[in-house]
């Protein structure tokens, strides 16, 4: 019990700090005078008040956070934050159930970008901005943000950081202090977002749309202010800008930071993940465009290339913007896009899925097995980009992949039991677990998740959380060992 209270103490503080995030929609509602000011102020006061109260009541249990605390706190944070973030939605949108609102905020903060709302174009600007801001915060991570602005997490910060940051190898410290690392990552993230806002404004969006879409682009979230997503603009220039920034966001932000600090782009060449990620995505763009053109979906190769590139990059990077109803394309194309979404995002980026580094590790492991058969005495350590990967990491990656596939399979079965058709269930689970959003069938790009039953919605919500926190962090809470002393 005492352990839970220590965690609640930290959680309270973080909720109170999180309430600062409401300042941006408050500012927007002041500018646009859209009548949401009171609601956001109330939400802010409630969030801050609840957090402060929890913190105050449990201050006797203030203590150092252990590894176990870390997992509990991270999961606690990632479940309670979407809960409080539903407040403005529930207050503003009539008839929205808590289930759908929680799905929406979870989708936002896990950067999935799936939505149950329709009529996005008519929502008050502040509400739309709030959804996008969740995308943005969730992209780099709440805990990373908390570590950056709350030095008092101290030693435990590193544990939390590891529990949240995606990727199998998290020992590479950019700076001696974890707080400093977190700050730098957020600084790089915010700087690139600013560049994205300016580029989108230049490409023809108004300021509000530019800000909203930059938030969801950099977080690789995929929320849009329009029901028809980016297809609304029908502008190659906007699509191009978004493609470029999605590709930036799908690369490890540590690499961006090193490039910025060293003022050189050679670090990208030394990052094996970045090369594989970009190579696979760009190669697929050309290939899928060729396929669509050959299949006669588009009569001109260049049109095919434009639409294939945008939608493929969007799904593969796990953003989830759409400009065309790709569920009408021959099934190979959307399935290939989803397959990419499972594998290509770099660790330490804002993307979802298995991550490129794990894909590379498993590829090399397969190669090692072949070599072992040919040369039984060969010594062949795993190396990625010239760096040694210890065997225990290889094993943990294998464990991760197993859990990943089991989770996907189990959740697909659960959705099938609940009465969903296979292609919808399968694509919905992939879309949620890999945080890319739109699936196929009833959850395809032309429709959204509002047709799901409450139970199915909760299953998808769980899939998003498990996917974003990379399975171990969430599932560990369900193991008996975790609770045993």
């Amino acid at each position, binding site marked *: 019990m005492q352990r839970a209270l220590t965690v609640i103490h930290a959680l309270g503080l973080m909720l109170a700090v999180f309430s600062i995030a409401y300042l941006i929609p408050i500012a927007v509602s002041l500018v646009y005078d859209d009548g949401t000011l009171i609601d956001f102020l109330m939400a802010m006061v409630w969030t801050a008040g609840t957090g402060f109260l929890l913190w105050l009541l449990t201050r006797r249990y203030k203590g150092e956070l252990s590894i176990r605390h870390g997992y509990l706190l991270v999961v606690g944070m990632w479940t309670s934050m979407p809960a409080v973030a539903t407040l403005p939605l529930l207050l503003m949108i009539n008839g929205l159930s808590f289930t759908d609102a929680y799905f929406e905020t979870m989708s936002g903060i896990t950067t999935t970008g799936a939505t149950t709302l329709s009529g996005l174009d008519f929502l008050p600007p502040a509400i739309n901005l709030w959804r996008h801001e969740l995308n943005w915060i969730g992209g780099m991570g709440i805990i990373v943000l908390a570590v950056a602005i709350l030095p008092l997490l101290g030693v435990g910060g590193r544990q939390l950081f590891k529990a949240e940051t995606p990727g199998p190898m998290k020992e590479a410290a950019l700076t001696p202090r974890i707080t400093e690392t977190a700050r730098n990552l957020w600084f790089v993230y915010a700087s690139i977002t600013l560049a994205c806002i300016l580029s989108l404004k230049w490409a023809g969006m108004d300021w509000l749309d530019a800000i909203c879409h930059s938030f969801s682009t950099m977080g690789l979230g995929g929320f849009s202010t329009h029901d028809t997503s980016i297809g609304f603009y029908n502008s190659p220039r906007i699509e191009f800008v978004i493609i470029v920034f999605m590709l930036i966001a799908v690369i490890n932000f540590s690499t961006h930071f090193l490039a910025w600090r060293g003022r050189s782009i050679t670090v990208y060449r030394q990052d094996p993940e970045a090369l594989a990620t970009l190579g696979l995505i760009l190669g697929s763009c050309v290939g899928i465009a060729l396929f669509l053109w050959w299949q006669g979906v588009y009569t001109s190769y260049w049109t095919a290339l434009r639409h294939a590139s945008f939608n493929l990059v969007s799904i593969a990077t796990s953003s989830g913007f759409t400009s065309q109803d790709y569920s009408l394309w021959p099934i190979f194309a959307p399935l290939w896009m989803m397959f990419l979404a499972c594998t290509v995002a770099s660790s330490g980026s804002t993307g979802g899925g298995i991550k490129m580094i794990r894909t590379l590790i498993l590829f090399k492991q397969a190669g090692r097995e072949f070599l072992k058969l040919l*040369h039984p*005495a*060969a*010594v*062949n*350590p795993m*190396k990625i980009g010239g760096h*040694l990967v210890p065997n225990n990491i290889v094993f943990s990656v294998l464990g991760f992949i197993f859990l990943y596939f089991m989770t996907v399979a189990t959740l697909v079965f659960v959705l099938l039991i609940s009465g969903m058709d296979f292609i919808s269930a399968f694509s919905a689970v992939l879309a949620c677990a890999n945080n890319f959003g739109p699936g196929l069938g009833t959850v395809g790009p032309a429709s959204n998740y509002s047709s799901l039953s409450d139970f199915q919605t909760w299953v998808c919500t769980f899939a998003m959380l498990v996917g974003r926190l990379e399975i171990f962090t969430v599932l560990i809470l369900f193991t008996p060992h975790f609770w045993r002393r």
Partner: protein
Amino acid sequence: MKILILGAGQVGSTVAESLVGESNDITVVDTDSEKLRQLQDRLDLRTLTGNASHPSVLEKAGIADTDFLLAVTQSDEVNMVACKLAASLYNTPTRIARIRATDYLERREVFNEDNFCVDFSICPEQILTEYIAKLIEFPEALQVLEFSAKKVSLVAVRAVEGGPLVGRPLRFLRTDMPNIDTRVAAIFRQDRSINIGGDTVVEADDEVFFIAATEHIRDVLKELRRIDKPAKRIMIVGGGNIGRRLAKTLERDYQVKLIEHNKKSCATIAADLTNTLVINGDGTDEKLLLQEHVGEVDVFCALTNDDENNIMSALLAKQGGARKVIALINRSAYVGLLQGSQIDIALSPAQVTIGSLLAYVRQGDVAAVHSLRRGAAEALELVAHGDRKSSKVVGRRIDEIESPKGATIGAIVRSGKAIIAHHDTVIEAEDHIIVFVNDKSIVRKVEKLFQVSLGFF
């Protein structure tokens, strides 16, 4: 000359042995008194036990009036500190250190006068690696030595039946290859040097030394034996300093397999190398060699630090069908024994590396020294200075120079261009001259020949 050698290891003792003969006062310092005792038993020199970087030890060893400091202990750091102390406390004129770590070597400023005051750094492993790499590039050659920024090479090759020149007089070299200038410096027949002229007939099994511009080596080799296709598959036994460096040098251009028996070092080697297949096992294990297809190996290098193992695995490899086998052999007695046996090349690390050190110790302006034929002969690169008055070589045609018998002027490198020497070539000041000396006892005379007489100053 007063010479202080720090470290009585492989390099230290060979250098001492070589320099003692040239009438120098030598002191050797090492922490291992047993090694020193053995050295003193054999050679006429002074020894001192102690840590080579401690000022008190250096003082006792007489650093105050030393002309030449040679720091070749196992530790780069000790060598560097010794050089620094010698420079700043005792004003020793010349300081040479053995430096292995590439980290230091990549930052040349570490060695300058503001830092560690190392005049010259040598890395025997690197020299040996480059030497072996050359042998792999020209698998037909017994020895390939480069002079003057790799412009000119001296190549030793065993003539084999089937080469166009074999069985014909040397003067056909010119008619066979009108566009290529080369000069045969010496021919050894049954281990004895023979007098050569245009009419000398090359016989099979002769050991021919020729000098040519580096890009022409392959063409000249073709004259003396049939050329097989270039080497591709390399097998190295022993992942020590040399094996590892060699694998790293070769792995981009060749298929390299490296066999090392220590499992732990295997792991570090494999982590360090990218394209080499590292195999954990014993190089003398016949089954392992067959399993790894030793029969298809073009060049097999046994480079462990155990002579007997090297000999055995090289013999096994040759028997298994390897095209050319090289064995690294420290004991000079073994080297002579094995030359011309089943083992194609018996390499003595000391002979290969000593030349780079000797160049600094020799009198006159010597740019490079290479030991040939297990130390019996030598090839020198000398720089001519002065004018017709002060020098015995400058301004003279080669047939006017009174060079001692046994010394052949092979080539001249003038402002970066290689000129193969003929009897009417005139030597100019600042020329680099490559001289082949087939008997080491006349090296002194050759050096004297190139020294500028006092009038020059």
